[in-house]
């Protein structure tokens, strides 16, 4: 067919010799090889990463299971002397640390989740990318990089300056942790609010619903599963913090349920303290019930408990997210 005569489109178009661009066998092969190579590399990345990850979990589980039993979960560390068994037949436990962990993280949640959500609401629903909002969202990003030890120093400085030197209590730890949680909460909520389709806001507003109710009943409700899982990630980020809590919440071997007074032990701090003890002494006349390696065994068992708590939290979060899952179109 005489091409040029018919097509007005291609008038004046350069003539292309498409044979030149035909894929050659070698180019095809090299592309295929590259594809295969990258597939291999990506698979390999995965395998490489699995080695340490599996090793961490495996070590913790194997070492942790040795001492993880009901007794360990129902007693604290009072009256535990050296490697000797306690009257209940155990070797001390972590009930005080579990309570401390839950209360301190709970305190951090109570502080940071409402603030975080409202801050995200401000950024997404009210600020519309104004200058202040840009600054705030930039600072939130920056804040997410605050090292946990700095958060600890901050809470320590604040409490010792405001409430007098030597102040150590659970809520001080909560404040340190909430500083770490806050940016994570804000950012994940922000993301979640952003992906709520604008259609829904407009639909609600067009029904004559006030902005506040649109936000609480439509936007936040639609984003809820995402917010929940975001908050869980934030909790997971802080529940294992050790360094800031060493400074702020201290360490105690008995159970303290008062978040606002007295020292509190958390699981990670417990793990660290037991690791620091390394070995317990068994005097020469001790019976065979005395276990010299008991502190390390307790450390691993507590580490396992910590991992299990994190796992359960994750599961709960996912379940919540699934049950309330919201399908927005596309």
């Amino acid at each position: 067919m005489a091409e040029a005569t018919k097509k007005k489109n291609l008038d004046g178009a350069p003539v292309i010799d498409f044979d030149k661009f035909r894929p050659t066998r070698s180019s095809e092969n090299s592309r295929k090889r590259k594809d295969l190579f990258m597939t291999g590399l990506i698979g390999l990345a995965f395998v490489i990463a699995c080695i340490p990850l599996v090793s961490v979990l495996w070590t913790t589980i194997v070492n942790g299971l040795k001492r993880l039993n009901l007794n360990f979960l129902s007693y604290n560390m009072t009256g535990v002397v050296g490697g000797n068994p306690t009257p209940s037949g155990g070797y001390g436990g972590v009930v005080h640390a579990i309570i401390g962990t839950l209360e301190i993280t709970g305190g951090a949640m109570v502080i940071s989740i409402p603030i975080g959500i409202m801050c995200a609401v401000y950024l997404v629903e009210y600020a519309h990318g104004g200058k202040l909002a840009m600054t705030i969202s930039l600072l939130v990003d920056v804040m997410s990089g605050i090292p946990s030890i700095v958060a600890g120093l901050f809470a320590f400085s604040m409490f010792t300056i405001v409430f007098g030197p030597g102040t150590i209590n659970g809520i001080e730890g909560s404040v340190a942790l909430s500083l770490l949680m806050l940016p994570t909460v804000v950012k994940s909520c922000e993301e979640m609010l952003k992906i709520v389709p604008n259609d829904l806001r407009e639909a609600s507003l067009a029904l004559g619903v006030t902005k506040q109710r649109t936000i609480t009943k439509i936007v936040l409700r639609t984003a809820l599963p995402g917010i929940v899982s975001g908050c869980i990630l934030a909790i997971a980020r802080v529940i294992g913090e050790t360094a800031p809590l060493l400074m702020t919440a201290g360490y105690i071997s008995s159970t303290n349920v008062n978040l606002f007074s007295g020292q509190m032990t958390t699981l990670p701090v417990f793990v660290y303290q037991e690791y620091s003890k390394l070995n317990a002494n068994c005097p020469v006349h001790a019976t065979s019930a005395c276990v010299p390696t008991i502190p390390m065994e307790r450390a691993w068992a507590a580490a396992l408990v910590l991992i299990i708590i994190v796992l359960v939290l994750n599961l709960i979060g996912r379940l919540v997210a699934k049950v309330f899952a919201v399908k927005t179109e596309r």
Partner: protein
Amino acid sequence: MSSQDTPVMQPAGGKTADKVFKGIAYACGILILVVLAAVFLFLFFRAWPLIGGDQSANSATISSFTGGKTNSFWGYVLPLLFGTVLVSILALLIAFFISIGIALFISHYAPKKIATGLSYVVDLLAAIPSVIYGLWGGLILVPAIYPFWNWVATYLGWIPLFAGPAANPQRTVATVAVVLAVMVLPIITSMSRDIFLQTPTLQQEAAYGLGATKWEMIKLAVIPFGKSGIVSASMLALGRALGETMAVLMILSPGLTYSIKLLQASQNQTIAANIAAQYPEANDLGVSTLIGTGLILFLITFVVNYAARKITEKASV
């Protein structure tokens, strides 16, 4: 049904609630600024004796921290800063490519069922506390990794970074970087996985439709789409690495030099681990000094995150 002739535009209820809600939202936004300012101010206040206090006492404190190697604050903090940055960047370098690989594996290579499981495992790993990584790194990894680093030092020793002899046990920057890489890997992985999964199907099909292989599709559609997400994930990861305390504390054999001999012990130390190591035995002035170094760490992470954020902004325009 009847059309009740409502008067036109009667005032709607809920105006007060509307205003209060808006006020709270604004206040929470502002609170972020206040909190950051508070962090800075409280730290600064506690570190004040470093500047406003008795300088000879300060010198004595620092000299006692360093065994007399230096008695100036900067002489103390700069090597720490160097060590902090060195370890974190190494960790990021190690983790980055592997994380992107895993993220792609989960988002585009693994069968759906496996991918869900893997994602879950990765999310879980992000939550493993650093103290556990510290235990694992110090007790399991250090002896296990020695043969490898020794091999590296033997055959790649001509590269200054790997100058031998490899310390035994390997409580070195290299090993710590590996542990930190493992720790930050889930962060980068899970964030970039989420982004990769969001790549519009349309873009991916556009690439496939042109006859792209899977990898070419990823290069054409997935990576460009995820670029800024990857940067911000890495930034978060770097932030975490910069401030990581327990794992470094429990593994690294510290030193206060500007050395880059990754395989030798007692070369570098990080600010965060140094604070944790010195804090328990520090007296009042010592605590001020440590808080001073903490303030520096705070400013550094601030600057790094700020810069990274600016990069992300530019990239996404």
